[in-house]
């Protein structure tokens, strides 16, 4: 019997573990893949207060080592379901706790068009910092309008011959500072009010079809397409135990309470207005302290 089981070893989950371990609780963290969550893909984190600049990998590894030194138990197993009595069933076993914190995060949103999956690693990428070097002196497109898309386009513009930025609107959600920087690049072409609707190529991506909001279509020859259209949650397995909103995020009644007693949510997995490292770790600390307080009452 654990005091707290945490599902997910990203920044929210590991911060929850940190607070629970420091309160001398018995903690189990369950992670399906590797620790760190989405932040490991970030080349540089420069908006975390008190840390001027750090790679996402180094940040995640520091946090991981911090909880490991406190004796954190981490099992690499895939959670299949969470039951009413706070029993957590994985592909390998079943564990019980007084409280469960869901910190499953989010993953890259897909365009959901034909061949998208087939071309991953063959022209389709969700991580510019990972894959940009394979497109040296080539032509690529980025689709999206948020910070990630604009940062990706800036990064790629220094490596590639030409970068198209395709966005479904003519305004950007990204911070102005990034958009202004992108506009100074000579090899960027903005393709606005347009969506990517088709992918062409045999063994790898050769061109994309874009459709403008006025229904006109155009083919653009590219070697790569970087998809940066935000994130989506992966909470499907919890839909019978906690309430999800229509996008699939876990509804949090206030900070971190789900609609089920003893089950909490932290980080990108929940309904919230800002999904950042700072808000993920804030959730993790609140979820752990709230869970501890309520199990002792």
């Amino acid at each position, binding site marked *: 019997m654990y005091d707290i089981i945490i599902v997910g070893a990203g920044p929210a989950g590991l911060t929850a573990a940190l607070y629970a371990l420091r309160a001398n609780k018995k903690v189990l963290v369950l992670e399906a893949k590797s620790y760190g969550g989405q932040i490991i893909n970030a080349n540089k984190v420069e908006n975390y207060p008190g840390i001027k600049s750090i790679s996402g990998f180094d940040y995640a590894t520091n946090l991981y080592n911090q909880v490991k030194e406190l004796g954190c138990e981490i099992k690499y197993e895939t959670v299949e379901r969470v039951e009413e009595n706070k029993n957590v069933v994985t592909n390998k076993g079943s564990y019980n706790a007084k409280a469960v914190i869901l910190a499953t995060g989010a993953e890259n949103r897909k365009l959901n068009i034909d061949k998208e999956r087939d071309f991953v690693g063959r022209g389709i990428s969700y991580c510019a910092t990972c894959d940009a070097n*394979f497109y040296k002196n080539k032509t690529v497109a980025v689709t999206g309008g948020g910070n990630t898309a604009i940062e990706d386009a800036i990064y790629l513009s220094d490596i590639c011959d030409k970068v198209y930025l395709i966005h479904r609107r003519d305004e950007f959600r990204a911070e102005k500072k990034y958009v202004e920087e992108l506009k100074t690049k000579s090899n960027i072409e903005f393709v606005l009010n347009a969506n990517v609707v088709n992918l062409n190529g045999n063994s790898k991506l050769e061109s994309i079809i874009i459709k403008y909001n006025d229904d006109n279509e155009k083919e653009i020859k590219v070697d790569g397409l970087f998809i940066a259209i935000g994130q989506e949650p992966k909470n499907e397995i919890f839909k019978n135990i906690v309430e999800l909103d229509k996008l699939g995020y876990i509804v949090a009644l206030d900070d971190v309470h789900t609609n089920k007693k003893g089950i909490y949510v932290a980080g990108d997995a929940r309904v919230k207005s800002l999904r950042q490292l700072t808000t993920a770790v804030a959730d993790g600390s609140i979820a752990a302290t709230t869970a501890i307080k309520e199990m002792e009452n």
Partner: protein
Amino acid sequence: MEVIEINEKEFEEKTKKGKVFVDCFATWCGPCKMLSPVIDEVAKEVEDYNFYKLDVDDAQEVAEKYGIMSIPTMLIFDDGKLKETLVGFRTKDEIKEVLK
């Protein structure tokens, strides 16, 4: 078995015989750093493969030849023939399943 780092010049020689697993990585790639200890563990448990890792930043020709456009990419060979390509992070169990 240890995972041995090889360079582009050694690549063909090392992959032409027997069952071979190559982890194609780069030093700056976060998911690659996550994968590396996983491959170390797989290598300890799977005996009939030779395990190598290749820094693709210094192996442009191999990257070109095998169409590597994303890392980490894992290449699995049998007597020099490419049997399987895995793109992106995988768990230990997922990799072992492919090597069965």
